[in-house]
């Protein structure tokens, strides 16, 4: 019964007028971010952290954190929805989890059924959002109760598992992903050591004492990296936008997509919980599953409504599922959740098992706001889909320099140093070249967020054991996590060496 009571309190928080506005602004900007080619959910969320920080500046710390995370999560799942619009209308996915949607969505648009496809995508996303919400409510308390029994050794191994899972699936080369992870962990050691108070790698430079700011690096690598890519490669969108046409889906469309939406939502949710396996994999798997169980598999790729319903519900289900390890264990399973975690830490809120007892307003407020946000998305997108489709027409000439200006404003408004601005631009250049050559960026950002916690837990565990590393193998739960981490790394390598295709998550 406690859970219901907490959820009701969460709704009381989420239904406050300012939080309704935050949720609305979040899903609105999120949808726009998803629609605009060039900014994905990760860069969208990263860009908005400083903006939300200033928006919530006048509130109490607890309520400011709740409002900020409500807005940022809105951007996250709004972007998941928005990505489908360009997939369907332009055959250009706004973000990588909508790649599969383009296969059938664009075919439907060419047949003059873009409106139905967009509507089914909206309905699918809504249902998935609700399924994820129910899953979150059911699993949040028990999981955080289990996590509360973890000691530092178990936590260290769990975080290592999170890092291995993301690195194991990210990008085409595992070596490159691991390299990025270790680099992130190393960068995270710069600054004052939180345990001993010793300054590390600072060389007397004052700006380095507080360490490299996660926000600066994330905005630089993701947002500016993408902008530089578009400028250098002259990707200005192009293509012709299909007409939206009739928006309401037919009865047959609804009948055909009911099953795929439900299956996609549940599958997506469970894939989302797994660290490393992001929304892209979820949409991919659900598409394959629907094709396999369909009576007319040949329809797929030629404009099957199921081919839009399943992946769109799966990617939204996955974004809800990905919040579970973040909120209950404090382990972000993807790039975007790592950025959300960074935002929470900025507000002095530590995600993890204690979140639900220490900050119930934030945890349950967020969960309740997801229900409201999804409802807003549905109501907003059905009539406004034509308006959103127009966003695609925004000329790159104005959009790209404005994104650079927003990044610079955002970082400066939080950090107030020229050093951070230069670091931001540097990260943008590095981010472009790294991602161009298949060095995945998400593991680096994840490592920067998790680095300090991994180190603290490792040192706590080693202090308990008098410096004996065997402590990580003596605790059964810790061994289990380490074993899974090992498998996560070794299995894809084995599969690859046997010549099998290993699916990688490019979105992370």
């Amino acid at each position, binding site marked *: 019964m406690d859970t219901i009571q907490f959820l009701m309190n969460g709704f009381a928080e989420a239904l406050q007028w300012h939080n309704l506005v935050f949720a609305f602004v979040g899903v609105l900007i999120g949808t726009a971010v998803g629609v605009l080619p060039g900014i994905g959910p990760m860069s969208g969320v990263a860009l908005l952290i400083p903006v939300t920080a*200033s*928006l919530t*500046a*006048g509130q109490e710390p607890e309520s400011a954190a709740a409002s900020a995370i409500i807005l940022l999560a809105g951007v996250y799942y709004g972007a998941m929805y928005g990505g489908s619009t360009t997939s369907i209308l332009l055959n250009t996915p706004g973000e990588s989890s909508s790649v599969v949607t383009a296969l059938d969505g664009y075919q439907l648009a060419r047949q003059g059924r873009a409106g139905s496809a967009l509507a089914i995508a909206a309905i699918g996303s809504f249902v998935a959002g609700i399924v994820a919400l129910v899953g979150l409510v059911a699993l949040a308390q028990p999981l955080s109760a289990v996590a509360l029994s973890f000691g530092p050794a178990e936590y260290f191994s769990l975080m290592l598992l999170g890092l291995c899972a993301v690195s194991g699936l990210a990008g*085409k*080369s595992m*070596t*490159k992903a*691991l*390299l990025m992870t*270790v*680099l992130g*962990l*190393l960068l995270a*050691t710069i600054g004052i*050591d939180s*345990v*001993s108070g*010793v300054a*590390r*790698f600072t060389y007397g430079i004052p700006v380095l004492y507080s360490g490299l700011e996660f926000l600066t690096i994330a905005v630089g690598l993701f947002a500016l990296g993408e902008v*530089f890519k578009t*400028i*250098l*490669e*002259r990707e200005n969108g192009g293509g012709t936008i299909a007409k939206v046409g009739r928006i309401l889906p037919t009865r047959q469309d609804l009948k055909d997509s009911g099953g795929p939406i439900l299956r996609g939502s549940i599958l997506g949710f469970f894939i989302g919980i797994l660290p490393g396996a992001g929304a892209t994999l979820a949409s991919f798997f659900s598409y394959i599953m629907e094709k396999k169980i369909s009576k007319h598999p040949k329809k797929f790729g030629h404009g099957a409504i199921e081919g839009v319903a399943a992946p769109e519900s799966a990617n939204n289900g996955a974004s809800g599922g990905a919040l579970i390890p973040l909120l209950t264990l404090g382990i972000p399973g993807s790039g975007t959740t790592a950025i959300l975690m960074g935002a929470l830490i900025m507000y002095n809120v530590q995600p993890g098992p204690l979140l639900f007892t220490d900050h119930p307003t934030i945890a349950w407020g967020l969960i309740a706001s997801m229900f409201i946000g999804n409802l807003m998305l549905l109501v907003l997108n059905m009539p406004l889909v034509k308006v959103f489709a127009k966003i695609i027409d925004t*000329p*790159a*000439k*104005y959009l*790209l*320099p*404005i994104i*650079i*200006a927003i990044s*610079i*404003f955002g970082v*400066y*408004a939080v950090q*107030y140093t*020229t050093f951070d*601005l*230069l670091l*931001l*631009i540097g990260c943008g*250049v590095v981010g472009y*070249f*790294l991602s161009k*050559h*298949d*060095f995945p960026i998400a593991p680096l950002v994840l490592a920067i967020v998790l680095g300090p916690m991994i*180190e603290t837990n*490792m*040192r706590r565990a*080693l*202090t308990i054991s*008098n*410096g004996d590393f065997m402590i990580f193998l003596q605790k059964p739960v810790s061994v289990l996590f380490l074993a899974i981490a090992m498998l996560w790394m070794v299995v894809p390598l084995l599969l690859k060496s046997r010549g099998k295709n290993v699916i990688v998550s490019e979105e992370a």
Partner: protein
Amino acid sequence: MSKTFSRIVSIALFVLGAAFLMESGRISESAYGSNVGPNLFPMGLGILLMLLCVRLFYETFRYPKEEGEPSVKLDYKRFLMILGAALLYAMLLQPLGYLITTFAFLTFSFQVMEKGKLWKSLAIAAAFAFGVYFLFVGVLEGSLPGLPVWFR
């Protein structure tokens, strides 16, 4: 996959790893109340980074031969102009203030992206610079240098 780029990265990060390894040797070894000092973690990571770099360098020999895929012609001129403008923007933001630098950066970048429609560029740049400043400083009561120090 570019062989050369991967090799450059592996060498650069190897050097970085070695630097972290050496420098962590200079951090005091023990911390009060703990057997494990602040040097252990970066030291281990430095070694790991170096090992991974060796592995990546080795892997580059096994890369499939680079095919003559139609390489995208990169627009370096436009990129370098905008990058230069962004660097100037970042460095001049504090001394010149937000309004002037943002307006100048945007107008210049709009024109670099696509020449012409100067009035429209000026209007959008001004609307953005003043709009953001008004919202942030006027409405949200944030702090941002508006105009140059000598002007205020």
